[in-house]
């Protein structure tokens, strides 16, 4: 092989490497910005300070909630809770996990009550009742919301789930939602 040919090969490899690094960086930046949408799903300004939260999604293969990290804009406590719920409903990044509830469900209201209780008022256009779920789905859906909100929000010990402004005895006929719920760590998978 001639010196010239070798030099050309090396230069080519360096250029290809740089292109690859650039592509990876660009993709990861794009990835990062898609995970910071607000409740309405619109892109938010990710130039401000961000905070990291851990979201818990139901697994498709085991009967547990698995953690995924997200960066959300630093904001008020209510905005933080809204971002958490929006990200949960939008769905996980992993193919092995699922969104706890259909994405058409909206978070109508967030209320901070006494004694570390937060009230999340959920609704779905034209749906009088929450979605029909099996008990395992309901258990994971309820605690996906409860754990993700309570474990990321200092000062929040319990989460009450409302549907259309009232507290149902159960969302889908199994899990007791008639009272504020404390996080259930037993449902969390051992490692993220």
């Amino acid at each position, binding site marked *: 092989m001639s010196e010239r040919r070798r030099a050309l090969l090396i230069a080519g490899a360096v250029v290809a490497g740089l292109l690859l690094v650039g592509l990876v960086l660009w993709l990861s930046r794009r990835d990062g910005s898609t995970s910071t949408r607000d409740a309405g799903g619109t892109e938010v300004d990710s130039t401000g300070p961000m905070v990291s939260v851990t979201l818990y999604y139901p697994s*498709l293969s085991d009967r547990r909630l698995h953690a995924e990290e997200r960066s959300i804009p630093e904001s008020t406590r209510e905005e933080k809770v809204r971002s958490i719920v929006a990200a949960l409903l939008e769905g996980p990044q992993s193919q092995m996990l699922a969104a706890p509830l259909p994405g058409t469900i909206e978070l109508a209201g967030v209320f901070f009550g006494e004694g570390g209780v937060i009230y999340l008022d959920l609704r779905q256009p034209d749906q009088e*009742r929450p979605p029909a*779920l099996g008990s*395992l789905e309901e258990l994971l859906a309820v605690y996906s919301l409860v754990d993700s909100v309570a474990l990321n929000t200092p000062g929040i010990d319990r989460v009450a789930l409302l549907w259309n402004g009232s507290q149902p005895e*159960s969302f889908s006929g*199994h899990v007791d939602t008639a009272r504020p*719920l404390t996080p259930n760590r037993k449902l969390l998978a051992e490692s993220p």
Partner: protein
Amino acid sequence: MRRFVAFCWLACALLTSLGAEAQEPAPPPPTSGLVGRAIVGSESIPVALQPADGGTLFALTPLVRRLGGTLEQGAYGESWELRILETLYTFGPNSGALLRGEDILPLSAMPQIGATGPMVPLDFLEQTFGDQLGLQFQWEPATATLLVRRPISRTLEVVPELVQLQGTSTLALEFSDTPRYRIDEQPGLIEIEILGDRLVNPWGDPPGDSLVRQVQVGEQKIRLRLAPGTASQHYVLRRPFRLVFDVYPSTPSGRAATEVQRIVPPRQRQGIRTIVIDPGHGGSETGAIGASGTEEKDLTLAIARSLARALERRLPVKVVLTRSEDLQMSLDDRTALANQNKADLFVSLHVNSSYGSSAQGAETYILSTEASDERAADAAAAENQSGEGDGDPLYDLQLILWDLSQTHHLSESLRFATLVQEELNSALELRDRGVKQAPFRVLMGAAMPAVLVELGFLSNPTEEKHLESLDYQNQLVDSLVRAIARYKTLVESRPEDRSGTGDTP
């Protein structure tokens, strides 16, 4: 934060182990046939040994068999689970971490999986059996002997409290730490023998009453002398650990038919006579929906109807269905119906659904302890707010008794659920995943043993097909009838309706 620390710890352990592996030759392969012995009391049992980097490893299985506890492989991955009394330990091969709940206890050597199960280091034994049962382990390599001793090391404080309310005396023995004990009941006398520990009673013995004549706390034995013609039952409450005895006249005339009968555990239960079967969901509330459109509410109704017919045909029982047609009914109304009918057993039937399609099999649930505790706390808070209980010690006691009755039902529910799961496992050839606990609303407030059975997964297409077939439904019904028959025999063959929880042999 704790999870993060745990994660870091595990990561460090993993890195260290990887590093060690890279620099040093691999540990020697398990030496087959190396056997030592463990001396437990006066007994000598053979225990397989394996040399390891951090010291000798001991076969866990024979020790569990001799010392108590359960050992099984975890549902996921390579982990193993050891349960001693109420504490669950998780560990696995090639990790120097022993998990106790969320706590991580470091081990001097990594457990290995040998031909007969897990092999564990000495400090594993100390941190599990040692902590839980107050045992001491001493390894003598020269003679390959593991000495297991029970020193009298702990001094437990016990505070006995005796109250009598409308014909029942309740004695609560509150311990400063979980004791190991054995209960010996004879007519007129109950003796609680404390195994290993020494008791002190800082407040002295309480004066007796008309049913519990004398309470005597000794260093290693507590004696209760009962009036003639009394019966008793006991249960355990935790945080703090309390051993509770209810003593009452054994003749019905000796008991006042009062409000208290409703809120304390049923003691004069004559057996299982009324069974309430609850077909889950109904009306516009469909429950889970299968891939090919099967609705949970229809399956549960069909199976409940056929279960009711089979039970009434095969057992001398009255069966009440919470709903016998396709209508919507609240969960609280379902338990209220069971309470109104003074049911002896409550069985809620459901069909499950999961996010993925792989989950399958039938599962039996009882109410989770946390949910039961939280509900009691909520009830107490609500009563306090309404001012009903203010300054009325009798009222507070009724709340405590309500709590006690829930504990009693929970232990009976577990007993029944275990039989249901056993029957389902053998009929459907399922791997035993045990009875599960969940905060299910329909199990709350039931004044009787109550279980929720998930008969299968509609989210699994194969299982959906099975569940629709009459043959499969009949198999499920048969299993449930057998479980109910076994439980009925069990309850009715007990001379007294005792819960028996907390008895450690």
